[in-house]
C-alpha cells in the first residue's frame, strides 16, 4: 500500500457533488439497461433502508416512475417499520409496488426450523416467543473474527454464547434462505415485466462482502456499489427522500432481535467504517485514521487488518462460476 501524505484527511473526504453523481449514475443506468441488459425497466426490492430507497429514487430519475416496480418482501422476523417505510417511499416516488409475505415460503422450505434446531443446540430452552441474533466479535480487538449467538427469553432475559462451527454455519445457511427467496421473487417479476433487477449494496457492503451469494448479491445492475454509505445518505437527503428514510439506522432486518450492521459484520459504525475503508484505499496510515475517527492507533491497525481479512474471506462471493478453460467465443 502506498502511503500518501498530501491532502488533509478529514470526514469531508467523503463529500460529493450530489447533482453530478446522480446525473452520472442515471446516465449509466439507462445505458446499461438499453445496451447491456436489453430490458425495459427496473425491479427493486425495497427494505425501507437507505440503500434500496436511494436506488429506487435513482431508478425513477433514470427511466421514469412507470418503468420501476417495487417489492416489499417481509417475513416473520422483519420489523414492521421496513414495510411501512417501503410503502412510504413507493407512494412518495409514485411507482407501482406490491407487498408479498415470504414467511410461508420460508417456513415451507425449512428456514425457521433449520435455524431454530441449531439455536437449540446452543440454548436448549429456546422456543416459542424467544428472539435471536448473531453478533460479530474480535475484529476491533485484534482477535480473529467469530460470532456470538444472542437470545432473548419471553421474560426479556438475554443470554449470549460463542457459536461453534456447525451451529454458526447452519444458522447462517438457514437465514440465507431469506435473501435467496426474496431474489427468486424479484426475478419472477423481472421476467414477467421484462425488467432488470437492481442490487442495492453500497461500497462498504460490496467491498467487504456483506451480502448473500445468489441472494441479495445477485442482480443485473448495482448502481451505488461505488459509493460509501455516508455518500448514499447524502444522496437521499439531496433527493429529498422522506425524513423517516433519511434518518433510518442501518439494520440487517434479518434476525428477530434488533441488530445493527456493525454488530453483525463491521468492526465500527458505518460513519467510521466508511472513513476507515477510504483511508485504507487511499494509503493513509493507521495513525491518521485513529486521529480522524477517535480510536487508538492499535485499533486502527486492527481495523485495517479486518478490512483485508474480509476481502480475502469473501472473495468467492464476488466470483462468477469458474471454468476450467475459457470459452473464448464469449467475450463478456
Amino acid at each position, binding site marked *: 500500500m502506498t502511503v500518501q501524505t498530501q491532502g488533509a484527511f478529514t470526514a469531508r473526504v467523503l463529500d460529493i457533488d450530489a447533482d453530478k453523481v446522480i446525473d452520472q449514475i442515471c446516465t449509466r443506468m439507462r445505458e446499461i439497461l438499453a445496451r447491456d441488459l436489453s430490458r425495459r425497466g427496473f425491479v427493486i426490492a425495497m427494505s425501507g433502508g437507505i440503500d434500496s430507497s436511494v436506488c429506487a429514487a435513482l431508478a425513477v430519475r433514470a427511466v421514469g416512475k412507470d418503468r420501476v416496480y417495487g417489492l416489499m418482501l417481509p417475513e416473520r422476523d422483519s420489523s414492521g417499520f421496513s414495510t411501512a417505510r417501503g410503502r412510504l417511499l413507493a407512494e412518495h416516488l409514485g411507482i407501482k409496488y406490491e407487498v408479498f409475505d415470504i414467511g410461508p415460503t420460508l417456513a415451507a422450505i425449512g428456514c425457521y426450523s433449520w435455524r431454530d434446531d441449531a439455536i437449540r443446540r446452543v440454548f436448549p430452552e429456546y422456543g416459542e416467543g424467544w428472539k435471536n441474533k448473531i453478533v460479530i466479535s474480535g475484529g476491533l480487538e485484534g482477535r480473529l473474527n467469530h460470532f456470538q449467538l444472542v437470545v432473548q427469553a419471553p421474560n426479556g432475559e438475554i443470554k449470549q454464547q460463542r457459536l461453534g462451527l456447525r451451529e454458526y*454455519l447452519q444458522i447462517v445457511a438457514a437465514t440465507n434462505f431469506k435473501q435467496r427467496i426474496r431474489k427468486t421473487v424479484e426475478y419472477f417479476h423481472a421476467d414477467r415485466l421484462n425488467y432488470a433487477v437492481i442490487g442495492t449494496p453500497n461500497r462498504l457492503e460490496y467491498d467487504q462482502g456483506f451480502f448473500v451469494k445468489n441472494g441479495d448479491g445477485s442482480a443485473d445492475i448495482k448502481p451505488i456499489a461505488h459509493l460509501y454509505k455516508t455518500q448514499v445518505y447524502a444522496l437521499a437527503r439531496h433527493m429529498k427522500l422522506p425524513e423517516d428514510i433519511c434518518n433510518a439506522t442501518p439494520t440487517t432486518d434479518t434476525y428477530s432481535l434488533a441488530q445493527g450492521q456493525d454488530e453483525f459484520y463491521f468492526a465500527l459504525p458505518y460513519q467510521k467504517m466508511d472513513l476507515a475503508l477510504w483511508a485504507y484505499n487511499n494509503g493513509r496510515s493507521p495513525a491518521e485514521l485513529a486521529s480522524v475517527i477517535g480510536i487508538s492507533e492499535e485499533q486502527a491497525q486492527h481495523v485495517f487488518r479486518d478490512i483485508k481479512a474480509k476481502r480475502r*474471506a469473501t472473495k468467492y462471493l464476488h466470483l462468477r462460476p469458474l471454468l476450467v478453460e475459457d470459452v473464448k467465443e464469449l467475450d463478456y
Partner: protein
Amino acid sequence: MADDLREQIRAFILENYLFTSDPDALGLDDSLLGRGIVDSTGMLEIIFFIEEQLGVKVKDEEMIPDNLDSVNKITNFVLSKRQAA
C-alpha cells in the same frame, strides 16, 4: 509427542484445506491467513478441530493469530494448554 502433534495438525490442514498429503505444500511456519489457506470460517474449522479432536478448549481471548496462524503456533498453543491443564 510434540512432533506427532505437529504432524497431526499439518495433516489436518493439508487434507482439508489444500487437498493433498504432500508435506512440502505447507511449511511449519507458513502463515495460514497470509497465504490465503484459511479464512475466518476456515479458522472456525481449525478451532473446532482443536476442541473436538485435540481436546483443548479455546477461549475467546485466545483466538488470536499468535496462537492459530501456523502449524507451529497451533502446536505450541495446544501443548501449552495441555501443560496448564
